[in-house]
């Protein structure tokens, strides 16, 4: 698998990361190198081997349906750059 320049540009756009044109060629090379490295995994024969999500042997931990949190609006909004009353506010988004 190999990425071209347009694909890298699109990925950057989808991730909302600005990449200047002159950086693109270098980035294509870096990403392809990473992909190539990961791709070595496909050399291992995994036919008939079930996917392994964890080696700990524990299943997905679950919580009871109980309200344990809430009323944290001050803390929750503490890092908001531009809170308005109890709301976050952002530049107008119109669909």
């Amino acid at each position: 698998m190999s990425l071209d320049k347009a694909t890298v540009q699109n990925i950057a756009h989808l991730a909302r990361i600005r990449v200047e044109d002159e950086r693109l060629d270098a980035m294509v090379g870096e990403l392809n190198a990473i992909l190539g490295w990961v791709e070595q995994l496909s050399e291992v024969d995994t036919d008939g081997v079930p996917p392994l999500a964890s080696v700990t042997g524990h299943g997905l931990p679950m919580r009871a349906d109980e309200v344990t949190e809430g009323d944290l609006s001050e803390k929750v909004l503490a890092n908001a750059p531009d809170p308005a009353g109890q709301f976050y506010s952002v530049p107008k988004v119109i669909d």
Partner: protein
Amino acid sequence: MSDLITGETGDWEVVIGLEIHAQVTTKAKLFSGAPTEFGAEPNTQVSLVDAALPGMLPVINKEVVRQAVRTGLGLGAKINLVSVFDRKNYFYPDLPQGYQISQYQQPIVGEGEVEVELEDGSEKSIGIERLHLEQDAGKSVHDLHPAKTYIDLNRSGVALMEIVSKPDMRSAAEAGAYVRKMRSILRYLGTCDGNMQEGSLRCDCNVSVRRPGEELGTRCEIKNVNSIRFVQQAIDYEARRQVEIVEEGGEIAQETRLFDPNRGETRSMRSKEDAHDYRYFPDPDLLPLEIEQSFVDALAADLPELPDAKKMRFVEQYGLAPHDADQIVEDRETAEFYESLAEGRDAKLAANWLLGELFAALNKSDNTLADSPISADGFGRLLDMISDGTISGRIAKDVFVEMFESGRDAEAIVEEKGLRQVSDTGAIEALVDGVLAENPDKIAEYKGGKDKLFGFFIGQVMKKSQGKANPALVNELMRTRLDG
């Protein structure tokens, strides 16, 4: 029943698939311990997980899993013992994580089926593609500030079931019947309250048009429609719009659209390029969700009687017409009301009065059965007075109106107004004779062959008795006098 759309160049078939987002009835959210109640002050029901602060980890709410499995069982669907949570990546201010945790390739529930009854009384089976669990997003408020959008994350992280149908519907009416049925099943199960005004149940409609029997056309998705009426309006509008475009030689652009209830039209929301490139991948914060068959079996054994089964029972046990039974079982509360009303009474009379008088009065006053001023018990005592001949059916309707307005007992109203039916033969004979004495010319006409006048005589007697004479007795006595 498939409603074709007649265009300039011939007939078109509309093909509809629906995605229903149903909020799972739980106290806490899908992956956090924050509350889910509707209508709280902004951002007061938000945990640090819901606000996506760095380092916070999701822990799944067991009740959500239980409710999703029960819903799957209620839809007769395949339950997947292993399912996987994925990240669906997109940016929007009300999605603080920058991704929604959802299920993509391995949902918790697979294929199932729902039977819907259509207006002409026929039944149609609508396929279910899948049901998966996902997080709700926060709420964007656009109208509080001219240049800003306000964000409330109370909904963020609330558990939703997305129930995806197969593209099996062929008219807005079928889509409406499907949503009604789905809502009914969810409410019976108690897995979603089905409240569309509060957004607990929302619907995305996928609509395309084609020549009957041909390949599927390009579809548009109408997002977040929040009432059954709007679902039908949106589909009707969208299908016509697409037919017009295709007939003019244009092409349908696959896109997401919004329904504007004020204008009754759909409009483009965002273009397809970004919208469907979600780059799903398994969420590394969550192991696969594994459940035991024994867990599923125990839930299956404990499901309540669902609308289809109840409908069949009502038809057999109470002798109801299938269509009447369908209307009664749609809401569990209505079905329970009916059963206590029908207990020990004429079951058909009970169904007629419930569907006729009570429903009409509730609709007219914009109320539901829960607000009914007449209890099943009080309503039953009115029916008893009809059955035992204390009042006539005609008088009972007047008593009903007064009961509905005042909330008073049928007995009290009947006594106070002296509405007891007159079944005293002597008293009725006197009325009959009075009417006949006043109309010698009509008697002559009647004897001369004008049979219809019989109704006139009966009407006069009923009028004289102010509606209180026992109609069967009046008939009998009049018959004896005139023809005997």
